[in-house]
């Protein structure tokens, strides 16, 4: 029972980080209908930037988030302008798979050259600290990461639902032609949307670097997990990404702690398969456009 409850705590806290990563992924899909296979590589790039700021200037990874998100927002906009915008709208969904995979490989190469392939980790003074609550350990880094992710997701929600830009995004998602007729520049929305997706990857990357050792090749495992989360939650749904992340993290942690780590990944994929059999669009995916 102790292992079960400890696994549950670990799973819930870790889910926040994955929700943040997956929210960027699903936002980009919602706006552009682009399945961004480079999201994992963007997270790792965010982790490296945070690592560099910590080792070179002593900036705490949590405090570095405003810096890395701005930098990565710029990187995301450049990617959209240079690699995705030239794609014809009608071919974009299919071709974007190849293009974003190529971007992931390009980023991996740049990171390998810049930081080598050695495994890095961000070891702050509080990296291994934890609080004992009723005999269970609540890791400080995971708790802060969870709270940070909640805050970031809340800001994203407010951005999409309470701002002029958010209305433009939702209008573009629901009906791009009508939005354009009403003066919404869909290309600008796409660039900013991709930038925001990359910025969420930066925030998640800072936390990821605190939790796990990483190198330039870490994005392969990450992207398969992120795709599973957004598929489970429903492509284009931020709420779905949060629920998907919870299901992935909690099921993995609980099964690893109580049954076997071999079965933990398998269990999640069984859940994913069953959900997709019943609801092919995922838990919160809709047939109509506009499900951000």
């Amino acid at each position, binding site marked *: 029972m*102790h*292992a079960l409850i*400890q*696994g549950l705590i*670990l*799973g819930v806290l*870790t889910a926040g980080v994955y929700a943040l990563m997956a929210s960027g992924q699903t936002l980009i899909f919602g706006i552009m209908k682009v399945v961004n296979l480079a999201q994992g590589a963007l997270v790792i790039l965010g982790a490296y930037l945070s690592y560099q700021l910590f080792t070179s200037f002593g900036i705490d990874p949590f405090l570095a988030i405003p810096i890395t998100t701005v930098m990565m927002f710029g990187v995301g906009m450049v990617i959209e302008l240079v690699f995705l915008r030239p794609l014809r709208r009608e071919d974009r969904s299919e071709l974007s798979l190849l293009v974003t995979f190529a971007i992931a490989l390009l980023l991996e190469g740049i990171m390998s050259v810049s930081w*080598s*392939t*050695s*495994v890095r*980790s961000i*070891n702050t003074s509080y*990296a*291994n*600290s*934890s609080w*004992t609550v009723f005999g269970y*350990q609540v*890791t400080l880094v995971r708790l802060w990461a969870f709270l940070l992710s909640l805050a970031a997701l809340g800001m994203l929600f407010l951005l999409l639902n309470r701002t002029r830009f958010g209305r433009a995004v939702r209008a573009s998602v629901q009906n791009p032609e009508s939005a354009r007729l009403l003066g919404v520049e869909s290309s600008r929305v796409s660039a900013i949307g991709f930038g925001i997706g990359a910025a969420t990857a930066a925030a998640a990357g800072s936390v990821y670097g605190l*939790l*796990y*050792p990483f190198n330039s*090749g870490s994005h392969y*495992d990450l992207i398969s997990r992120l795709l599973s989360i957004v598929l489970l939650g429903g492509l284009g749904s931020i709420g779905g990404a949060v629920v998907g992340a919870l299901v992935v993290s909690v099921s*993995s*942690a*609980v099964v*690893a*702690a*109580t049954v*076997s*780590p*071999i079965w*933990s*990944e398998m269990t999640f994929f069984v859940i994913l398969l069953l959900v997709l059999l019943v609801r092919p669009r995922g838990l919160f995916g809709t047939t109509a456009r506009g499900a951000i």
Partner: protein
Amino acid sequence: MTHHNRLRNVARVLATATALVGLAAGCASNASKSGSSSSSPATTSAPLVIGASVSLTGDFSDSGKAIQRGYQLWADTVNAKGGILRRKVQVKIVDDASSPTQVVTNYQNLINKDHVDLTFGPFSTLLTIPASQVAARYHYAFLAPAGGGPKVFEQNLTNFFFVQPAPTTQAGDVFAQYVLSLPAADRPKTAAYAELDDPFSAPIAENIRTKLEAAGIKTVYKQVYPSETQDLSPVMAAIVAKHPDVIIGGTQSEDAYAQVKSLVQLKFNPKMMFQSNGANSPLEFPSKVGANNTAGIMSSADWFPGSTAAGSAAFTSVYTAKYGGTAQQIDDSTAEAYAVGQLVEAVAAKTGKIDNATIISSLHSGSWPTLLGDLAWSSNGAPTGEFNLVQWQGGKLLPVYPSTIAQATPLSVKPNWGG
């Protein structure tokens, strides 16, 4: 006309066949010449060219570069003494990009195109298996500083020598021996095993488990985790719930760091802890888990700073002179690659010859001094010695068992985290 054409065709076929036979004979002669060339100091002063395919890019590039440093350092050292049998040593290194396909092409080229005198091995079992087969085809001795997985020895190649004290899967046996050497009252009563699912890590832990269970040490947890497992906290939480006396990690690197970090976060300190890999990296381990969390953790190693084995002091001093840093920062792989060169040097000194056949026959008899200790091999190239048990004490990784090489007394009870 028809008769003329037929004669011309026959002549063409004969000419082509003669050319092919000639070409084949030439190739065979070349290959055979390079594979078994016998060069004595009296007959040649041409450089001794040694070819090696090393992973300078790709997944194994860090270890590949460490091996490259070892080969080059040995060549520089031996050349400073006038070379081997008065022949200067040239090391020709080509990059295999960590690819088992490229490594085959590289050794084919080194042997058939560059006609190197000797070949040294690449990094990893994955690359050593195909590379050693190429070398065997051309009767080259194949001395490999890495790649000691079981499948390498299953090939039963007589030209192959794994230049470490024991096959990789036996690296943890020394820990079991140490535990069983303790008085019964001091031995751990329960053990937990968390093993990475790869050809090296899990078998090392399993070998330990077999020995400890036979001695009555109860297994309270045993699980294998996939290599893609990012988060080991749930696995360690399950171990913590069992309160074992000793935790044995069949680990590589990242998972070793993750195990320690998780245990610190879960505030569980076992009486003893052994990790097959990761904890034996003097440079990486403290920076990844926090230097104050290393105390008491055990691992195994073949070379260690301050070793009194043959040539170790000279190796350490030339390494630090050339690359800077301290002895603690030297990668094991560099020492293992250097030992490969030492063996060739020792054979030449003992026999006065430096050809492949002599190297193969010589290394199959007796034991040979290197900075990894005295090495000897069985017929399939598996070394017959033992690794050393090392333990983190006072921020340093020190050899603690067996007593013949120990620089400190082993701590049988691990200090608490942060201690």
